[in-house]
């Protein structure tokens, strides 16, 4: 059985699996292209695929520069959110008084549309990187806290008895038992956090920034430049996928010493 899985992961199976989504994408682009041609849709409403590609190739520096601005917000904000979220998760999992005080708010905060916080931050922090970082961090940390805190209770109670029987202490228990057992949930939260960080960065760029792919989309929208919008959107999708892929790779690497498999 392990032989078979290895085969699908790295061998011909990989190409076969990839062929479906790639095929679907090609079909979608084809339909898009066909529509613009068949109905003679004016390019300012829906430019054909080649026009969008031409936009990208005409001024790659613009998109690359703004992709980096967005990445900056995602990485800084996401990192802060993940670190804070992780620390809070430890608190929730191991300090009963902390859990009692905080957990109800964390759970109810899920229903709060966090987008609504952005204009509030604008008042206190003004426009600029710091507002975006704080906003992205705020959005990213919720899934990390909730899923990591839940994951930290995955370890069977008998494992705790085992460690207690040699007086291993709290730190060893957390590091060698609870954390490895929590990793599957923690990574689920991390993936959500990364996805939400990109969303957060774009919203921040609409509300409180003058750079980034979100800002490019906003300005292009005001100027009715659908080709620029779509080009920026395409770059954003690639950026989001790359970040998600990075987390997936980290998850694979962690799989060897945790309960991930």
């Amino acid at each position: 059985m392990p032989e078979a899985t290895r085969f699908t992961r790295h061998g011909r199976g990989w190409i076969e699996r990839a062929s479906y989504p790639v095929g679907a994408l090609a079909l979608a682009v084809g339909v898009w292209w066909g529509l613009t041609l068949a109905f003679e849709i004016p390019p300012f409403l829906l430019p054909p695929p080649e026009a969008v590609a031409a936009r990208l190739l005409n001024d790659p520096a613009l998109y690359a520069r703004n992709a980096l601005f967005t990445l900056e917000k995602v990485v800084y904000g996401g990192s802060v959110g993940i670190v804070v979220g992780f620390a809070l998760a430890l608190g929730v999992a191991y300090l009963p008084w902390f859990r009692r005080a905080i957990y109800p708010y964390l759970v109810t905060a899920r229903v709060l549309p966090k987008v609504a916080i952005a204009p509030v931050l604008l008042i206190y922090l003004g426009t600029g990187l710091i507002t975006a970082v704080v906003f992205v961090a705020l959005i990213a940390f919720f899934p990390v806290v909730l899923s990591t805190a839940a994951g930290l209770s995955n370890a069977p109670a008998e494992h705790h008895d085992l460690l207690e029987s040699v007086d291993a202490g709290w730190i060893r228990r957390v590091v060698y038992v609870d954390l490895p057992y929590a990793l599957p949930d923690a990574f689920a939260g991390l993936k959500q956090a990364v996805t939400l960080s990109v969303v957060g960065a774009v919203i921040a760029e609409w509300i409180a920034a003058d750079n980034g792919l979100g800002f490019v989309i906003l300005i292009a929208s005001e100027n009715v430049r659908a080709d620029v919008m779509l080009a920026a959107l395409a770059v954003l999708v690639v950026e989001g996928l790359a970040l998600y892929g990075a987390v997936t790779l980290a998850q694979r690497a962690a799989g060897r010493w945790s309960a991930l498999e």
Partner: protein
Amino acid sequence: MIDLDGVGVDFEGVRALEGIDLRIEDDEFVTVVGPSGCGKTTLLRAIGGLQAPTAGAVRIDGDSPAVAQAGARLGFVFQNHTLLPWKSATENVTFLREMAGEEPRREEAQDLLASVGLEGFEDAKPRELSGGMNQRVAIARAIHLGADVLLMDEPFGELDEITRDELGVEVRDIWRRERKTVVFVTHSVPEAVFLADRCVVMGATGRIERVFEIDLPTSRDEDVFGSRAFQEQVAAVRRTLHESYA
């Protein structure tokens, strides 16, 4: 030497153990038998310091269980093997020693695995091994810890009868080889008799009903199961159990 002096445990109204007086000598093999819910696990946890008694005291070579824990003198084997799923057999054997703050010894761990019939499985993960094999790893882990006391709570409870018998013979062998003090909890009367120097029969309300001195040869193999002496003593233990629950 393990010394229980009037040990009692209450769980908010539920009396799990009451007035347990028991002395277990060094290198002795003691089994504890009784029906489900009679307090066997609670007794073992009290000895191992995982459950504080609400009455009386437990001493291990004169120390409290907490001191014995800190000295890595107690080796637990639970009903579930409690191996870490992401660690190999060897890593699982050394794990408990590391958690006790002691130097793990890989080679010794692999020798131990071989001695419990797991040669060639040193790198296998728990999910690649059968229930019986995993329980062997767990026993090797307790021995590798270097504890002089082994506390085993129905370690073969989830295994089939044939594997149980086999492992029973092995545990006796290990015990003779390693010179450990063993407290072994089970609800199987034949298992309790086969393994024991002394067999503690627990009755209802968490009390010791009777303690049997088991009269069988020191070296025991599968042939013992068919012997008259064995069967008579099994019958005697059974009778005591049934009388106490009549």
